């Protein structure tokens, strides 16, 4: 049984199924993080006092992480572009780099968290830390999810390149769209939590 438009686009919509699917999924993600941002604003506006992020959090480390994540977004899009140019080896390299950068991000995050715990700063300490830990942990989980998907597409999943290159390229594009979204969320999280 072959579902139509898994690899080619439906002519009147110009989309293949998974692309529409991932955008719908991202739309729901926008609402998820939107609710969290809204929570942040509401709590901050109503708070008697609110610390500046840079007084508590480590800005240089977070800047490093921003650079790492943006770079991983570039390598991700390059991985897809390599497939479009039929260069599978280059794809492997760029995808590998993407996964590596994501892991760097997680390691840095780990050091950030453990530094906070060492100073006895926990989610329950105050509302600022509560939202910081909750939102960054949720974002971190999204990174972990992305790493798993990307690792699959880098490793066992890449066999599909031989059997159905079009569909495989689509899969990488979909994974990329998700990955860029995770990057995009961080682009907002970084100033909101650390710099303001």
């Amino acid at each position: 049984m072959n579902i139509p438009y898994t690899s080619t686009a439906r002519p009147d919509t110009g989309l293949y199924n998974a692309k529409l699917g991932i955008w719908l999924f991202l739309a729901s993600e926008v609402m998820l993080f939107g609710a969290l941002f809204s929570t942040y604003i509401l709590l901050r506006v109503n708070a008697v006092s609110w610390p500046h992020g840079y007084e508590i959090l480590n800005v240089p480390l977070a800047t490093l992480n921003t650079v790492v994540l943006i770079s991983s977004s570039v390598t991700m899009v390059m991985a897809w572009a390599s497939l479009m140019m039929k260069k599978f080896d280059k794809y492997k390299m760029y995808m590998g780099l993407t996964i590596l950068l994501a892991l760097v991000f997680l390691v840095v995050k780990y050091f950030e968290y453990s530094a906070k715990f060492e100073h006895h700063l926990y989610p329950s300490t105050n509302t600022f830390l509560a939202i910081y830990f909750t939102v960054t942990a949720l974002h971190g989980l999204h990174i972990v999810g992305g790493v798993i998907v990307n690792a699959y597409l880098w490793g066992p999943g890449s066999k599909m390149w031989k059997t159905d290159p079009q569909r495989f390229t689509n899969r990488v594009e979909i994974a990329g769209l998700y990955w860029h979204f995770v990057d995009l969320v961080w682009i907002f999280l970084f100033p909101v939590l650390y710099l303001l």
Partner: protein
Amino acid sequence: MADETSKHNSQKQAEGVGVGTHADVHHEEHHHEVSFIRKYVFSTDHKVIGIQYGITSLLFLFFGFMLMMVMRWQLAYPGEPIPWIGLLLGADRAPDGIMLPEFYNQLGAMHGTIMVFLGVVPLAVGAFGNYVMPLQIGAIDMAFPKLNMMSYWVYFMGGVTMLVSFFLPGGAANSGWTSYAPLAVIATTGQTVWLIGMIFLITSSLLGSVNFIVTIIQLRTHGLTFMRLPFFVWAQFVTSFLLLLAFPPLEAAGILQLMDRVAGTSFFMPSGLVVSGIALPYTGGGSPLLWQHLFWFLAHPEVYVLILPAMGIVAEIIANNTRKPLWGYKSMVYAAIFLGFMSFVVWAHHMFMTGMGTTISAFFQTTTMIISIPSIIILTAFFLSLWGGSIRFTTPMLFALAFLPMFGIGGLTGLPLGLAPPDIHLHDTYYVIGHFHYVVAPGTLMALFAGIYYWYPKVTGRMMNDMLGKLHFWGSFIFLNGVFMPMFIQGLAGVSRRLYDGGEQYAHAQSVLQWNEVMSVSAWLLGLAQIPFIINFFLSAKKGKKAANNPWDATTLDMAATTSPPLAHGNFERVPDVHRPPYEYSVPGADRDFIPQHERTA
């Protein structure tokens, strides 16, 4: 010109699919190796998944109803031991068979949760949507069959999680299905499990709604333009968008409440909270109102998630049994879209009593009055569709007809609640319970039963027994009203909801207290009235009259172009093209009183 290209493209699609389907059927014949588990348990076939959703959600509906029947004993005869099952419940729930208030609270919270999230929505969307929608649009399956399977199993796990919570120390969640903070944050462990269960259910509905939208946009067959979609498909389409965009804020809220409970944060905990004379160890600074906003941001659209598929089912059945095109199909479609859109902008009418300002109250009153317009357009279109028709009073039609006044009562009694001044009197009284139950129970449930009787022959290849069906209908119809109509009387007298003795301690309740017994007896008789349905449901699958492929002489693809029951794979022997609008009944000059959508010539 555009039409020509799309025709060309779709033709290609139809041929491609047709060939693929045949190849697949052959493949089946050669191998026959699809194991029982892959075929019936972890199936990726939308029809099997639809049936799984249907059976599971019916079981949950029945379970949720049983919780209510137990509660009704306590309301009718407060403090008296529950007969039969009282002693089985155990000393921490009902010592000597007499229900504890804490257990009553658990039953109340879980009745609401189970009915809404595990019963009605999975039945309306998961079961009917999954089974019928792909057939109606001429698709061979959903766009993402594996996600579809996952959606069901995640839902199933969510359901199991909810059930397990009854056996925890302290029992299941007991802060109402709305789980308002700070009460829910300091409640027993059951609440944590409730939140985890909800996260499962939200994930499931997310997977489902993405799948539905992609399927409807991408897999429509050749010639099936949006304005030729059966109204049922439109209803599912709008519903999916509501689920997609309204559920995530509740997921966020669930995560935050989980953090409050597990990690000791104070998202919903105000400063200086003292409970029973003890200051709670929360830093404070949170907002209990935030929970209500995020909860109702989902839960109001959720009302339309319940009602829109019901309207879709009723539309199909009314057109089919009046033998007329639906009156005002286009305005109904636009009304449904507008309804979905507006449902996001009315949530705070649940919160007039929270100390919210008058400006905001005025805003939400206005939007609430506006949203009643599309509902009334749809209801009016249904009534006008009946005008001048030669109605066939089949069992599904009886249920569909009952939906109209029942939903009408539910909707109209909502208007006073949507305006802040009367809401001050009626808020959190039995009037509210009566109102939304009229929408959901005599309203939506009637439509869902109609759908079961209507599509049963398509699913099983056999008709349901008409006599038992009518018995079921009249019993349900009478006793549903017996349960819910007195609630308006009690509510107008000011009796609060969630009282575990039904208001016995309150002077103002004394004059309406006798209705408690009437409602409870009606509820138990309503339970008895389901017996013919249960018998019918199982017996007809084996012994029912064999159904023709198009048992109701319908026009839509699900009935007219498929076999009964549809083929295991691919749904259609050959994927049909569509040549006409969905409800071409009694076309003048035609030789039959219906012309199926896929028929080329009149």
